[in-house]
């Protein structure tokens, strides 16, 4: 196996499911699979065609047909695209009919759709997908997704999908908390601050159109499809919480320069307590 670092791209919202020109964030995620595209093609995890293998998990939407169709529209021209439906496995129309683990572990990118994170995690655990995804992540298969597809990778997630906001235990690959759609609802920021002040662990708040790229468990870079997209580090402190705005690279104006962004550590050093 090529020695690939685990990578997760957590979208605060956006990508093909939400943005008309959502291709910027999706293009960025696809570019991360480049290492495998041009690597040793005989290795597992590399399509013989040289195109990235991308598998969609629409679980959080209840495997909604329209969502699956939009995924194929976006990815099938350039990728070997497939999807896994956990609700259609009895009818042979689950997208993948053979062993889930061997299919998912042969991907370059696993793209998780948005929807209800509680429902998604419940179904995943029932089918053993939590353990499979952890293996995929460790192997360097890129994991990404917006909204529920972001929240799931973190240890704790603020879910405001229904009723009062609550803390949901995610898969815990990333030892932080996460809050998505940070700009979409006025109450979201205050709720996240309150939870972090009350003992939720430190983490990342991300606006629509912005994505956090983690290498291992370290934040590598924040990118945005919008010029004004923002992301924040939110940590508890003596006064309550400290919110630090992260440097975000706008994908529309420049391609990200790896050296220009020193990630979380620099943001922490430069942080001024509020």
């Amino acid at each position: 196996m090529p020695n690939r670092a685990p990578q997760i791209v957590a979208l605060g919202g956006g990508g093909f499911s939400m943005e008309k020109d959502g291709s910027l964030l999706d293009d960025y995620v696809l570019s991360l699979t480049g290492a495998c595209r041009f690597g040793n093609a005989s290795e597992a995890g590399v399509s013989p065609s040289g195109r990235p293998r991308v598998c969609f998990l629409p679980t959080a939407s209840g495997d909604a047909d329209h969502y699956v169709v939009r995924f194929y529209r976006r990815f099938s021209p350039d990728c070997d695209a497939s999807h896994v439906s956990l609700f259609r496995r009895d009818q042979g129309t689950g997208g993948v009919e053979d062993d889930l683990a061997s299919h998912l572990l042969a991907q370059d990118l696993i793209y998780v759709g948005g929807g209800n994170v509680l429902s998604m995690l419940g179904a995943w655990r029932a089918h053993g997908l939590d353990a499979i995804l952890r293996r995929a992540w460790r192997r360097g298969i890129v994991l990404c997704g917006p909204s529920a597809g972001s929240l799931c990778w973190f240890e704790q997630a603020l879910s405001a999908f229904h009723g009062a906001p609550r803390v949901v235990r995610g898969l815990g690959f990333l030892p932080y908390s996460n809050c998505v759609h940070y700009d979409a609802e006025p109450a979201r920021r205050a709720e996240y601050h309150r939870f972090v002040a009350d003992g939720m662990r430190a983490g990342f708040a991300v606006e629509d159109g912005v994505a956090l790229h983690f290498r291992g468990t370290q934040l590598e870079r924040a990118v945005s499809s919008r010029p004004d997209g923002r992301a924040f580090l939110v940590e508890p402190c003596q006064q309550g919480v400290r919110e630090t705005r992260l440097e975000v690279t706008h994908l529309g104006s420049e391609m990200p320069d790896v050296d220009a962004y020193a990630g979380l550590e620099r943001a922490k050093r430069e942080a001024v307590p509020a």
Partner: protein
Amino acid sequence: MNERSIVDPRERLIFAMGGGGFTMEPANPLLDDFVLSLADTREPRILFLPTASGDTTSQINAFKARFAERACIPEHLSLFHLRDSTRSLADTVLIQDIIYVGGGSMRNLLALWRAHGLDSLLVQAWQSGTVLAGLSAGAMCWLQGGVTRSSGPPEAIAGLGILEGSLTVHADGEPERLPMWLARVRDGTLPGGWALDDGVGLLFRGEHPDRAVSSRPGAGAQRVDAIEGELVRKRVDVELLGEGPRAALGGFDEAVEELRRVHRMRRGSSRGR
């Protein structure tokens, strides 16, 4: 709500269908009308849970098509589209007279209910007099176990265990399930229980089967137990709905009203009042 707060455990109702109802028999309302007749009120509140299908629009539309014009207050609860709802799950579930669970993936059904805490709410609803009904995964879920194809090939799966015994569904319609169930009952993986054909519903009053009804002539049911490693199979008598004296009553509403009166009388006499 005081009158609903506790119900004699012997009078709690669960109606488990081997297949049938609005999703499988759009032109045959017999089982669904029977479900409505089980409620103790003229215009029951009926909640549909399409969880096992992933809350598909087709199941929800079929539910609306069946119940919109009937004497009931229908609504559905989608765990994937909760955003549209302002009520809590408890407020939605605990006011119902009937909760009707659709078919699909039993593994996902139970996982999602547990993730949202719906499993305990449903037990609470049953204890307070709500009729629990369902087909396929929505029928097996109430018992200790069943046979699911949630992962493709049929396999044994545990249910909520509100009722003792196991259940297998579509005994005639999906012939690969029955041998798997019989093997698992024989080897003790699953407790003994019932095999239901499509179109057959088994009504549990308290924890015991009270009667079996059917929407299709010829559809059957059997009770199977393993005794010292051998399977003992016993045919269950099934009443064909829509025939006999009840069907001769004329108008549907009158028939339902009559049925309800009979139910009330039966309940009254069984309590020895």
